């Protein structure tokens, strides 16, 4: 009998209009490690949240030990023995590890008092049992990434998990920490726990998993025994278009340096050195958790770089209001389209024209005719459908994506920072965005391409780098040609 069975799960988020799950099936046996893989946005995390009772599905059935269940909260799932190690921390940062573990099941002393000492004792016992080194009385905000992850795992197993869902558990862990985690997972598995393991890292999956279920566009594509797979075929399963077939040629290095990192520090590691010149596309690839987001924040000016570490056309960037003029020649397609690319409650038209507001004379702007025409023209060129006078968040998700691309990739920016440019786009839109990036390169723009998807690099980049555990290493041309991107990304070359 299956320990956990999900069939025909549907989940739609009305706020963004995305259909995250559209008939996903997933079956977990006792004592198996079952990997859940798929592209970003394939629905892995949503399915995990449904399994753990954090989301209620719109349709579909869940059953545990063959009995149908309905989870209204995580507590219900917990009663069925399902624990979650979420991708993003769900710990209260100001509380101690022990307090976080106790939350919702606080040991009491006297009539109503929280027994902090017993909580620490229980947490210590638990940590001891699993060989964890995290101090139970440490504040979570004082812990490093591995300490936090250990705390998350402890919380998940504290209620005696029969099913443990791990969502990208190693993304912020070092090699050694990861292997400790794997040992723990094996021990849990031997004790009969069923483990749902969500990861991008092919090597880990092949090392750990018994079976692999592939999600694509919210549907289950296939469930395969892990022994039938190698790294390449697994990568193929995850990302459909043949990685091996892609070709990327390096071009002769172009003229003027536009964006320069000179030993810029990220939290994850050593200083980064990188130069992007006009007329070239420099690609950096990484999986989640490998400081790609930090690199994006630095390049885009969201975070403040150290002194004399970041330069645009030879001028130092400070990462604050002083850069306003410099920012205007930078086109930025952020990963977080909603948070950084839109002022979502403002009208779509204002969002669309934000980068070119200065181009209008006060009179022309007040007359509204030209801005309206320009906006309509842009919308038509990039296929944005919807009422432009309504707030941007009234547009559908895809149209919002296109809106950001339309604004940023129009005109002749000196520097383009494209972070995960294809994310959330349908093939046609993806193709048009890519075409536009290549055009911009031909026009002399410098393009920094940051992506979690190696295919983007293969298709666009003149030079490619891999960011792994805070270090930037060039990808040799054969790395792209031989179709070994996935192994590159999972650290084989790093």
């Amino acid at each position: 009998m299956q320990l956990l069975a999900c069939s025909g799960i549907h989940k739609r988020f009305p706020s963004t209009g995305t259909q995250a799950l559209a008939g996903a099936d997933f079956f977990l046996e006792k004592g198996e490690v079952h990997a859940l893989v798929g592209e970003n946005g394939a629905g892995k995390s949503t399915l995990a949240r449904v399994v753990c009772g954090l989301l209620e599905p719109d349709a579909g059935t869940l059953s545990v030990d063959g009995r149908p269940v309905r989870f209204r909260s995580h507590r219900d799932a917990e009663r069925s023995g399902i624990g979650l190690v979420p991708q993003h921390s769900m710990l209260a940062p100001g509380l101690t590890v022990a307090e976080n573990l106790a939350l919702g099941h606080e040991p009491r002393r006297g009539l109503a008092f929280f027994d902090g000492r017993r909580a620490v004792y229980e947490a210590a016992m638990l940590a001891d049992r699993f060989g964890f080194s995290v101090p139970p009385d440490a504040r979570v905000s004082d812990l490093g990434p591995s300490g936090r992850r250990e705390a998350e795992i402890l919380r998940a197993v504290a209620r005696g998990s029969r099913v443990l869902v791990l969502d990208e558990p190693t993304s912020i862990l070092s090699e050694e920490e990861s292997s400790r985690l794997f040992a723990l997972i094996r021990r849990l598995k031997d004790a009969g726990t069923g483990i749902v393991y969500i990861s991008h890292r092919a090597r880990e999956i092949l090392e750990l998993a018994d079976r692999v279920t592939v999600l694509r566009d919210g549907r289950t594509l296939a469930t395969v025994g892990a022994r039938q797979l190698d790294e390449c075929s697994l990568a193929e399963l995850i990302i459909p278009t043949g990685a091996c077939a892609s070709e990327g040629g390096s071009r002769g290095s172009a003229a003027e340096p536009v964006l320069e990192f000179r030993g810029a520090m990220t939290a994850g590691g050593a200083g980064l050195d990188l130069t992007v010149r006009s007329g070239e596309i420099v690609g950096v690839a990484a999986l989640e958790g490998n400081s790609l987001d930090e690199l994006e924040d630095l390049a885009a000016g969201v975070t403040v770089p150290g002194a004399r570490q970041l330069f645009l056309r030879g001028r130092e960037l400070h990462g604050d209001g002083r850069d306003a003029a410099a920012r205007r020649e930078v086109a930025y397609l952020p990963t977080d389209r909603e948070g950084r690319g839109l002022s979502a409650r403002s009208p779509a038209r204002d969002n669309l024209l934000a980068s070119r507001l200065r181009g209008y004379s006060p009179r022309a702007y007040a007359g509204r005719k030209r801005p309206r025409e320009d906006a309509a023209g842009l919308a038509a060129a990039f296929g944005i459908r919807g009422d432009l006078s309504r707030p941007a968040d009234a547009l559908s998700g895809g149209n919002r994506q296109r809106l950001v691309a339309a604004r940023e990739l129009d005109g002749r920016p000196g520097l383009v920072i494209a972070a995960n440019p294809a994310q959330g786009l349908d093939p046609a839109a993806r193709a048009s965005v890519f075409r536009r990036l290549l055009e911009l390169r031909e026009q002399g723009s410098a393009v920094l391409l940051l992506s979690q998807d190696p295919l983007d690099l293969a298709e666009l980049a003149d030079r490619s780098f891999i960011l792994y555990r805070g270090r930037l290493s060039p990808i040799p041309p054969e790395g792209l040609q031989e179709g070994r991107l996935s192994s590159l990304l999972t650290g084989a070359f790093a």
Partner: protein
Amino acid sequence: MSQFASVLSQLFPGLVPILAAALGGLATEYVGVLNIALEGLIMAGGFSYVAVGSAWGPEAGFVAALAVPAAIAWLQDLYARKARADAFVVGLSVNLLVPGLASLLSQLLFGTKGVVADPSLASARLPRLLPGLPVLGPLFGLQRLSDWLALSVAFLAAAVLAWTPFGLRARAAGMNPESLELAGVRPGRIRGQAYLLSGLACGASGAALAAAIGAWVPNLSAGRGWIALVAVYLGAKRLGGTLLASLAFALLLALANAAQALHSLPADLIAAAPFAVTAVVVVAGAFLRRAKRPAVPAGGGNRAGRPPA
């Protein structure tokens, strides 16, 4: 020496209402919301004490003084959550609503919008417990029963925040509501309970004020709710800090009263001092925090409590 003793003896009655209300403010800060309605809730407590107390005696009055503001605060939060109204704006409305309602009810019940005096509601002084002592005598002796009662409620609120599972959950809700979701606790419920506690503590503050003079006086709280709120922020939204800040303000106000004997400083300027001090502390604190943490988006980070724009 006698001046010193005088300041000390005034410290306690001045401290109790501010401390209780500040703990009320802290309760909702724990769950991450600013309860701007402390002032209104104190008035609700004071009016309930007199309105119910004059009919059924001071004991019933005290219970009502706790129950009514607690209910108002709870409803205030319930409305804000269910109607998706801005919690802050709802709090502002409560500050308008309570004095209006008190005046209306006062007119209906007592036939006046003004002072409602009932000497039987004036709290008795406790017997002088430690007669001979110069410092402890005035501090601990000769104080009102109502002040001690209100202080116990304040202490209870502090204990709930510091030592119970609820306090833990409230803090977790304020830091990361998702942590409660995993714990199977509804953050909304915790928030409601925090508001309830907030109202309770403010009610104690109002009861202490009304019992000290045995009357309802319009505008009874006279800005103490705002000072309490300021104490919470000056105390960095922590229990110990809030206690200390409340104490500091009570001391400042007692000193200001004593200083009037010297005719040196105008009362209005002294009243402005806590706000000025706190403004400086808030800005300096923000500046230091920003200096310490350079990687914060400059010009970003709007406060969560924005108006519905």
